[in-house]
């Protein structure tokens, strides 16, 4: 080889060696950061089918049960408006008084609606839970989405990992149960995205509930010197088996990330035994449990994107009083999570966009099931179940109220484009071709 040719080739080789490690999975050399609005997004998928009437419209029993003079806001942390004064049953139980007659004190000094941007009347694309949750996480219409299968379209986690270069522990989905299709929402099986770009996931009521403690709390804490040979041998065996992408059954973290997650889990079991898990003060339900562990994950991993699902409001199918109580508590625990970020996670305090939105609404007309107060219950299948709201607060989010009951603006499929917009990868995500064609970033709607 001639000297000139040798120098040319060696220079190219060295250059490629320096550049190659920085090429993103999408093939881009540098992540797009020019238009990034915030470094973190937390989305609360709220809370299992919420009627506009009892939530953002503050009508309490007036519309649903025909009780005159019983309007009022039972979600004081999220929305504005005075609390109901008539037939108050959604609060805490005080001995010797009517059950639920003591509303939970407001946690935040000002409502989230006053701090950020509210879309008062948004169109949901489905009246069902799973397609609704899919819509929130994929931005697609979900028309071909089956149950008990992973999302058909890529999730926001996959978009962000592929186009923004986030690692697995940057993206988390916190589910509320292993029933139905919830544990499949951390990733699609899409050929161009899929499990290679999926999010980490815990279902706290299981992972950190009694089952998790029974099965995993006895696990060993290996030192790095012990872990390294295990990982090396395992990587050899995996390379030898050479599993194709299409046969992957799980998302994957790096060895270091796996070690971090395992340490976190062992730490949680220890904290549980010491009673050190922070919980919302006035709620102890499954949703509160879920949100408490979402807070632990936020504190430990400071993820770029975390979505947490809560669902107890869905009891409205057969118990309207229970629905009101769950709605009031969902407001409380959502506010607690927001406050927890502000007060306990300085790295995320002024750097996060906090999004709250239901996956679907509920019917206008009731079913015939009566509860303890002889109030009728509501399912979710009619046009009223396609009426929802969304709320966004945090860095670079303007303070404004958009749309009204007679002037709906936006769609639930807007959420994924909005998050992509926050992270500066809007064009990549929209151009991928899997988003609802009518969707757009909420920042562009106003």
């Amino acid at each position, binding site marked *: 080889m001639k000297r000139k040719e040798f120098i040319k080739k060696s220079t190219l080789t060295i250059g490629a060696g320096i550049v190659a490690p920085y090429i993103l999975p999408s093939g881009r050399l540098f992540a797009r950061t020019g238009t990034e609005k915030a470094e973190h997004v937390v989305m609360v998928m709220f809370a299992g089918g919420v009627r506009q009437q009892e939530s953002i419209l503050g009508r309490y029993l007036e519309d649903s049960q025909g009780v005159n003079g019983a309007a009022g806001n039972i979600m004081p942390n999220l929305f504005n408006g005075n609390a109901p004064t008539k037939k108050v049953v959604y609060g805490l139980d005080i001995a010797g008084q009517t059950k639920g007659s003591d509303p939970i004190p407001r946690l935040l000094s000002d409502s989230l609606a006053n701090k950020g941007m509210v879309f008062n009347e948004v169109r949901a694309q489905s009246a069902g839970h799973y397609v609704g949750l899919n819509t929130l996480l994929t931005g697609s219409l979900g028309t071909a989405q089956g149950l008990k299968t992973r999302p058909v379209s890529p999730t926001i986690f996959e978009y962000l990992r592929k186009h923004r270069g986030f690692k697995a522990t940057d993206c988390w989905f916190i589910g509320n149960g292993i029933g139905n299709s919830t544990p499949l929402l951390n990733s699609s099986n899409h050929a161009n995205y899929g499990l290679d770009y999926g999010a980490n996931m815990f279902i706290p009521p299981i992972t950190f509930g009694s089952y998790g403690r029974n099965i995993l709390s006895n*696990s060993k804490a290996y030192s790095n010197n012990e872990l390294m040979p295990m990982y*090396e*041998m395992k990587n050899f065996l995996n390379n030898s*088996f050479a599993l194709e992408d299409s046969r992957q*059954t*799980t998302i994957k*973290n790096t060895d270091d990330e*796996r070690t971090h997650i*395992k340490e976190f889990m062992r730490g949680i079991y220890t904290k549980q035994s010491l009673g050190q898990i922070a919980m919302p003060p006035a709620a102890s339900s499954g949703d509160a449990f879920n949100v408490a562990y979402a807070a632990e994950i936020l504190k430990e991993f400071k993820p770029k994107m975390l979505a947490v699902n809560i669902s107890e409001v869905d009891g409205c199918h057969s118990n309207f009083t229970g629905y009101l109580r769950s709605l009031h508590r969902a407001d409380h625990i959502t506010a607690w999570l927001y406050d927890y970020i502000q007060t306990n996670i300085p790295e995320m305090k002024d750097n996060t966009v906090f999004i709250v939105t239901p996956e679907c609404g509920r019917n206008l007309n009731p079913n015939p099931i009566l509860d303890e107060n002889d109030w009728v219950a509501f399912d979710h299948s009619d046009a009223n179940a396609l009426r929802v709201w969304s709320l966004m607060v945090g860095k670079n989010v303007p303070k404004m109220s958009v749309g009204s009951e007679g002037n709906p603006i936006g769609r639930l499929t807007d959420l994924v484009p909005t998050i992509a917009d926050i992270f500066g990868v809007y064009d990549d995500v929209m151009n991928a071709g899997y988003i609802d064609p009518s969707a757009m970033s909420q920042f562009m709607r106003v």
Partner: protein
Amino acid sequence: MRSFSYKVIIQLIVINILIFNIYCTKEIHLNYQVNAANIYETKAQKFKAKNEAEYISILYTNLYQKAIDPMVLFQAQSVLYSIGDQNVAKEMLLSGYFNNPNILIPSNAEMRKDIPNFITETYKRFYLRYPSEAEKVYFTNYIKNKPEVTVEMIYTAFSTSDEYSFY
């Protein structure tokens, strides 16, 4: 008293002989000269993923040499399903099993006494196949060169590997 004639008796004897000849034949032992062989899997044939219940019950039986309690299986299955990264879940589950003194595995001294045999037995135990020459060489060298490597580490690597999740 009724008496049979000789003719009738002879007829009955003939009928009996015919019945024996028609319905009873001598068993014939065939030998096709096929050599006895042990059947093992190859990794190329493993294309079906074990579900959580299959993975846990097979692993438990492998390590404890007894069947898992159905309630414990149900709980473990639910826990695995609740964790996004199955590698994390399986590594946690397995390290808990190793924390149990009832586990039945060879000692480190036994492993180092006859490394090639240990490797072959480990491949058969977890993968139901023999190791390739390359695999034998890798593990022989790895175990020989790293005195800190234990049976527990090797078993962890095998039982949390991709191949062990398929059949």
